[in-house]
């Protein structure tokens, strides 16, 4: 059995606009997709299921639209989905999100939990670690290879570190955060989409999970977003003039030193 946490994020090609409050983005007309790192996690969970049997459950926190991403995972082959959909959980920080996910997972039978190593939207990389901490299980982060032992009691994983590979072994259950390179996620097939329609997708509120709503939402954030600013406008390039390569090199050195002040 494995659980996979997924987050819905804006498609990386979406043009992001900052909302008038200066602290969030305009959410209308954004194309939402499953966080690409989570997709590696879903794919790995499915491969393990294909080898060992069992079930894959997708767990997510967010508004109704997140069911689209859960359905994508179901269409890829996951068995069921749980969405924690509660207006009081809107704008929760990573810790609160992890509490909600853990509340769903703790009552399930599980051997492995996958999440992306980070979300491509706010790049926090905290949810996976926090879920593992709350559940009191080992956390294996930024993983590019997963090998479950034949008897299904432990897992050997690889993490790239500065040109080397770190191999780690851990007993199960454990939580793995997926890094690019772990696998090539499969496409959702049309038959998969049709089958996904019939798979269970449960929605739960914080109260259903026995959670205190006051610990969630914008007000309860331990990390507060003060300001969002767009990246600086790219300056126009500069073409170095000069008759000879020597002249050009001298001019380049001068510009880098005096104008760009980088050397």
């Amino acid at each position, binding site marked *: 059995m494995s659980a996979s946490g997924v987050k819905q994020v804006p498609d990386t090609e979406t*043009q992001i606009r900052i909302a008038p409050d200066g602290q969030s983005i305009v959410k209308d007309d954004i194309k939402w997709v499953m966080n690409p790192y989570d997709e590696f996690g879903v794919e790995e969970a499915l491969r393990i299921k294909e080898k060992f049997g069992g079930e894959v459950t997708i767990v997510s926190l967010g508004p109704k639209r997140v069911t*689209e991403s859960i359905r994508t995972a179901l269409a890829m082959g996951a068995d069921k989905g749980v969405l924690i959909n509660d207006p009081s959980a809107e704008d929760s920080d990573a810790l609160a999100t992890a509490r909600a996910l853990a509340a769903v997972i703790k009552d399930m039978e599980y051997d492995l939990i996958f999440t992306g190593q980070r979300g491509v939207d706010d790049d926090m990389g905290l949810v996976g670690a926090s879920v593992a901490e709350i559940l009191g299980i080992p956390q294996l982060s930024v993983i590019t290879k997963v090998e479950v032992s034949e008897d299904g009691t432990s897992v050997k994983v690889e993490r790239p570190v500065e040109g080397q590979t770190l191999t780690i072994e851990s007993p199960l259950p454990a939580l793995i955060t997926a890094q690019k390179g772990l696998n090539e996620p499969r*496409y*959702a*097939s*049309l038959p998969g*989409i*049709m089958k996904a*329609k019939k798979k269970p997708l449960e929605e739960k509120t914080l109260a259903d999970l026995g959670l205190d709503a006051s610990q969630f939402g914008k007000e309860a954030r331990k990390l507060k977003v003060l300001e969002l600013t767009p990246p600086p406008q790219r300056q126009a390039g500069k073409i170095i003039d000069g008759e000879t390569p020597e002249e050009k090199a001298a001019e380049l050195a001068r510009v880098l030193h005096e104008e760009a002040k980088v050397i």
Partner: protein
Amino acid sequence: MNVNQRRLGGGMFLFVDDVNFEDVFTPEDFSSEHKDIASAVEEFINGEIASRSEEIEELNNALSRKLMQKAGELGILGIDIPEKYGGMQLDKISSAIASEKFGFGAGSFTITELNHTGIGTLPVALFGTEEQKRKYLPGLSSGKLIGAFGLTEPEAGSDALNPLTTATLSEDGKYYVLNGNKQFITNAGFADVIFTYAKVEGKLFTAFIVEQNWEGVSVDEEEDKMGMHGTSTRAYHFDNVKVPVENVLGEVGKGHIVALNALNMGRFKVGSVCIGSAKRAFFEAIKYAKQRRQFGRPICEFGLIKEKISEMAVRIYAAESMMYRTAGLIESRLQGVDMGSDESGIRTAEALEEYLIECSINKVYGSETEDYVVDEELQVFGGYGYIRGNHPELAYRNARINRIWEGTNEINRLVVVNTLGRRAAKGIIDVDRAQRKGLERLEVFKPEETDIPGRLDAQESLLGAAKDVFSLVFGLAYRRYGRALRREQEIIGMLADIMIEIYAMESTLLRAKKLMSGKRPEKAYLPVQMTKILFYESIEKVGFLARSILETMQGEMSARKYIPLVRHVLVSPNLNIVSLRREVAGGMIQSGRYLI
């Protein structure tokens, strides 16, 4: 699914004047399943096709074959095929959505896929016997078999039902001997099954299923085409090919039913593909216009570029509204049909036949929209657009064929009007009554003088007047020429153009109204402005065409006297067209793509 309760019959949009927006299917009505299918097809194209576009555009039949098989494994080739033959058995809306996605992102691989799933599969899917379906459909659906459509001959292009290819029954009555040549056949470089046509006993036009590896079938070299370089196009030669009688498709002498119905669906699909390519060209044009700076600022800030962006958007909006409205009509005609049963093929053909006018209109409007948009895209790029390696250069060449195949746009214009004439002759349409009623109403019609911001009343009443003008000129032409109207091709062309403009105006108007009454009425803002721009131009065009037809019908049954009336009724309300266009362009530039 959400389709019309009160279904409008084929071609009846011209004569019914109180079509309710609730009865019209629009892209805003897509179900979650439609959206999932859209993103699944998109993911496949982005991951497998777009990333290999250079290799594909060099023409690599082995790669095409592999990619087709991959598409088949994901169920993409089986959208229109019943489940019992390995297909997905999805609706025609899903079919249009998938074609659109290919048009957007798959370059010339689009045609490899489109031709296979359209005219390269539909003949047997619609008209095959159970035996034939069992033999060929699972393979065609999974991509293990590739289908081709062999209709065109060197001497039989638009006159396709008059081939020189012959089929002679053997003495023992077990097979036909096929002799002849077919040309410009898409996917011929690697197809397995050919749906081809020949005359039996010199007169009976008949469809056959031929397998490419049979003795006597030979394939020519690849054609060196202007565009669509990544798709295989070759000629076939049939030299005493023995075709078992079990491989006659449909009845002997009824091959036209097979060919024309397959082409109907083909036209529907070409229309969707064109909308997808137009959206892509539009996206590239905006992207470039935002980044290209001249006179110290991005060119998208200049009025003449904004005008182009707005005009492109309006046409795409119209084409898209017409396309999905038609898909909804066909789907509603199929309500209650068991799509898993063997009669579903024939029922689908009947539905397509009923909406033949709409399918042809979509093909014409879609391909002309695409051509218009790629041309303007190239213009936005300026000199860079003319250079190989930039999107417009390829898009421009690839687009051109869509006005030619699946019936040239000229043939499709004839189809549109002749079908209406045939239905009038059968009494399905009461031409006299429509003409009388139209005239009565036109005589008391007063066009609105002022346009009201945020409302479409003036446009709605003008649409009624445009329909009445059509009833009048069609009625007059029908009586003046009778059966000989078929020979007056220029008049037919103009009548067809009026029909097309009416379908465009009505489809955009109904979609905008549906959005206005929807959950998020603010989403109607751009569609309302685009509808107004379209009406501003289309009403002028309808007036000009109607007057030209009336001018032509001189002599004894002179129709000139109606010219002042037409001039008086088809008048747009006062509105600031430049500011409307700037608003539409502004909205699109902000989104960076076609988005409403």
